[in-house]
């Protein structure tokens, strides 16, 4: 732009004038938002908020027509146009999911199998409550020039991302166990994707996987679920019981998280991400050495014998997370833990809240918003956990009136 407009002094003046006009326009368009939006304004807004881009003139006309009709089916048809736009997948969903896949929670990261799998599940209306337990993976098919999917690198997805591949058109559902050579029982949906493993099974103690799963899928960080009343028998040896010589820190802070987290993070006892090989490891029946590091911090701490887990939050303050009464609250391995987490009301609530915030640009603020959240949750369940349906419903709620 600069080289073409800049034309000596006059060119500079021209640029400044253009920029001045631009700034004026920025303000003007904000001020010019209509108090009452008609069908066409609502259509633009609905499309913008779901697909992230303005509608084409044809789509605008069609959507406005549906909105004009106003009945629920027509409104759903209008939203379906937005959710069928390629940008909904390549832009909205990609940026919606990418922060879940890295510790920095940054959106500026390449496409990976975690993100691609969520996008595929949304496109195909795969029940999202299986996202943490299913033997599922989405790869990009029928696009030339892509490296094959690999448990050892992200090249398949990163190349597709760099090439701007249309994800809506080219994602294909596979069995994670087949693509990555994992035992089917060792797959746990998004948890055992390479993207997730490389971020949360790398180094450390595997507690990161639990914490970030909680953040991303139950919308709660450890601070919000700490409960010092839970039994302390499963807290591992590496947790100092008297940090700096002061056990009050342990009893008032550390216990709050570790008493609930350690018994559940035990589900990941056989997983590790080998940063050198760049690949996730699964050692069936053999607890990873990371579960025994710093074992001298408290010799009388828990020594992990296997990958059995128990949900101690079914009692106490965190019983309000709404655990499924049809599940036992304990089990072995990541898959059953993923089921436990994704069957909670907190999981459903979290998915809905995230979508609402992404589409409406705010957290639920008042009673109408909260009523809408309840309705979104109901629709989410009734649609067999279709996340696409949540986007459509939330977009319609916030389309203006």
């Amino acid at each position, binding site marked *: 732009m600069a080289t*073409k407009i800049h034309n000596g002094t006059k060119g500079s003046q021209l640029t400044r004038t253009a920029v001045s006009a631009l700034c004026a326009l920025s303000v003007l368009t904000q001020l010019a938002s209509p108090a009452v939006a008609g069908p066409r304004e609502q259509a633009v807004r609905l499309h913008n908020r779901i697909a992230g881009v303005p509608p084409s003139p044809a789509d605008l006309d069609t959507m406005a027509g549906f909105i004009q009709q106003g009945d629920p089916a027509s409104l759903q048809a209008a939203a379906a146009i937005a959710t069928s736009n390629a940008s909904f997948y390549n832009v909205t969903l990609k940026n919606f999911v990418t922060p879940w896949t890295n510790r920095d929670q940054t959106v500026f990261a390449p496409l990976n199998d975690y993100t691609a799998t969520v996008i595929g599940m949304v496109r195909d209306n795969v029940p999202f409550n299986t996202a943490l337990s299913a033997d599922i993976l989405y790869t990009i098919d029928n696009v030339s020039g892509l490296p094959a999917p690999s448990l050892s690198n992200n090249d398949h997805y990163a190349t597709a991302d760099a090439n701007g591949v249309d994800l809506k058109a080219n994602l294909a559902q596979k069995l994670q166990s087949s693509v990555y050579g994992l035992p089917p029982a060792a797959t746990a949906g998004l948890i055992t994707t390479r993207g997730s493993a490389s971020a949360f099974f790398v180094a450390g103690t595997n507690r990161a996987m639990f914490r970030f799963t909680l953040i991303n899928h139950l919308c709660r960080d450890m601070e919000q679920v700490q409960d010092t009343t839970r039994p302390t028998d499963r807290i591992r040896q590496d947790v100092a019981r008297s940090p700096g010589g002061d056990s009050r820190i342990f009893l008032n802070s550390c216990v709050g998280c570790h008493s609930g987290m350690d018994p559940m993070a035990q589900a990941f006892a056989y997983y590790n991400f080998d940063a050198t090989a760049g690949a996730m490891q699964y050692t069936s029946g053999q607890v990873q050495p990371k579960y025994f590091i710093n074992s001298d911090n408290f010799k009388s701490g828990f020594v992990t014998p296997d990958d059995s887990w128990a949900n101690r939050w079914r009692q106490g303050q965190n019983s309000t997370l709404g655990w499924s009464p049809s599940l036992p609250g304990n089990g072995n391995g990541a898959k059953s833990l993923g089921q436990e987490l994704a069957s909670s009301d907190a999981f459903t609530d979290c998915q809905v809240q995230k979508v609402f915030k992404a589409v409406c640009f705010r957290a639920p603020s008042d009673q109408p918003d909260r009523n809408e959240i309840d309705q979104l949750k109901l629709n989410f369940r009734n649609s067999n956990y279709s996340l696409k349906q949540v986007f459509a419903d939330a977009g319609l709620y*916030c389309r203006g009136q």
Partner: protein
Amino acid sequence: MITEKIMHPFEPLTTGARALQLMTKGARLLQSALALTALATLAACSAGGAPTVVNQQATPGPTASSYTGPAAANADVQSFKINLWENIRVSSRCGGCHHEGGQSPMFARSDDVNLAYQAANPLVNFSAPEQSTLVLKVSGGHNCWVADPKACGDTMLTWIKAWVGGGSSSSTGVTLETPPSQTVGANKQFPADSSGFQTYVWTPILRQFCTNCHRSDAATPQQPYFASSDPTEAYAAAQPKIDLNTPANSRFVVRLRDEHHNCWTTPSGGAADCAGSSAAMLQAITDYANTISVTQVDPTLVLSKALSLKQGTVASGGNRYEANLVAKYEFKTGTGTIAYDTSGVNPSADLNFTGPVSWVGGWGINIATGGKAQASTASSKKLSDMITSTGEYTIEAWAAPNDVAQTGANIVSYSGSDTTRNASLIQDAMQYEGRTRSDKTDTDGKPGLMTNAATNPVQAALQHVVLTYDPVNGQKLYINGVFTGSVDNKGGSLGSWDNTFALVLGAETTGKRQWQGVLKFVAIHNRALTAAQVTQNFNAGVGERYFLLFDVAALTGVSQAYIMVTASQFDSYAYLFTNPTFISLDPQAAPANITLKGMRIGENGSELTAGQSYATLNTTLGGSAYNATSGQLLSSVGAVFASDKGVDSDMFFLSFDQIGSNMHAHTEPVGVVAAPTDVPRAPDVGVRTFAEYNTSLANVTGVSTTNTNVNTMYNGLQQSLPASYDITAFVASQQGAMAQLAGQYCSELTSSSSLRAAFFPGLNFGQNDAATYFGSSLSANRMLVITPLMNKAVGVNVNAQTAAKVQGEVDNLITALVTLNGNSSGRVTAITQAACSAVLGSGAVSLK
């Protein structure tokens, strides 16, 4: 006499083993068979490892005259002479009274060591040296030669062990005593009704000063939500933080008073006032507690009998290797400003506290900023003398660093200044460092030996850290009984050691090189401990331990049945229970099929909130799982729980969900969800994020996102573009980046004849005389630019008000631009591009 000693009724049973003698109230001694078979239990409960090895170092006593009497009759008398008699016969110790012709028994007589030996024998318990009359007397305060009778007792014990052990293996027995039978006492309990809490604590304090964080709807919500607007939720969250029985111990008070956590300002609006804040909190809790009457223990609870820590049986110190001690500090005194050297090696290099050095419960000292514990140079001289004579040494410490950030921090040092030392054990952030002055180093002991940086071995937790030195290997560092792999191979002569230096813990002698943390044990040896010896001393553990026997005979119907735990003061604020074991002291008992579920620890009448490691127990007592002598181990994990009134007052008990046929339905805390509160809605407009904006520009202009110039600029600008839809986070630099990207798209658009023809149909880009071509305001040619931009950026028939504004502004822009060299090559293209940039870089596209 050796034979007589072997025939002593308390003689150890086997080498390397420890005898268990179970005593009832009448001090009934169980049969040796039971004692033998109970070995395993106590070996598991206490530390394992080889037996203690104690050799008394041959050092001169304080003012002993030379001995001219008969020679020792045999080797045992000679051992008595060297290890005990020479130390106690001086006039400043036992020899002042129990000398020849003095007070009986004359075990400290200096005229005949053989007679002294005969007098001393009845005063020593050879199987349990800590129970020796000599030890019990001085530790009870009988003419102790230092201020702390415990230190005298420990020193006497060291001497006796040196004699008894005689450099070979020794073992000691532990006698379990039937505890007193005490029922669990009454206590104050939280009422179901939260009104008192609301009146005294919640309304005036928590809702005033804690709402920024401790409520679920705070900007940064922080559990527990005791400042919730919902008093029910707040009440549930606040209960673990309030001690009704000792309000000053309430976490709410401690957090303000001792930890200075977000204290509030004075009423006059001055600086944060932690003293005032904590006093106000204490008063509020005290007032609240005063409204609550003492309630009897819930009669439905299934309870054991109650015990205090010191009503347990002392678990003897572990089996340490101490054959070459020079100095030893166990920090048992607990009061005053001196930590005594209980090595028994003269002179005692007692440590004097300077600055903030405080005692830690369960034996230990806490060194804070400005604190150190230092011996005199005169008493420290023995270190130099004894270590240079062997050319080897070991520094051994049980240390808990406050943090892993402190560097150049002296844990133990034998030094003269900041830059001169004989030896030091140092913390450098997450590494330990050893320095030893030798002919291979400078006077500061440099270069030192560091542990591997990659392994970050230092933890802010209690660690057993050992630095050894010998002329062959130089320095070696061990952590928690394991060799770190760090060895410097810089062994050399220690001949350059300066005997005028002082032993100091926690800092340099100058007060610099401060180390902050807890020391629970320090020993100096004048030999390099072997790896096996280091491991042995690590396995011996540290601190004061008791066996507590909680009576469950009535609950189980089993004679003399107990739940036995190994208990200790974990630190100044908590206790540790380990190895809960079901055991009957009746060897004939045969428990079978007794259900035990949910065992909880109680303290002073109430079940504890935090630290219940046995709450999930679900097992069956008796049958094949029960061993008549070792009992039945119920759990291998430990339970750390808070102290309440102090070690002398706290009474513990166990409660059960079920034991035998006795059941109690435990009630779990009920989760409470606060009612949501309304907040103002955020702006109902968002900013397009980076990818959305990029794709929108591509869709509007028809220029592909993969266009080389566009893609290059986008990749360069990506992280300068908005990452969030939040318009309140939108900044000028993001607008600048958007303008740049819009300009690039417009540049590509207007330079492509096909794209621009499709976008601006009818517009003649070949015209140079822009002023003439665009003519007057809103001319037809101007509308060839304005209308496509309006339709594609705003939308056809979308928001007429915005469209009108866009039209007017672009028209004004063209008017302004045509006056600038309006008749020159490419001016129509340039002006169209400028108009395009203005619209695509504006809120018409960047907002959604």
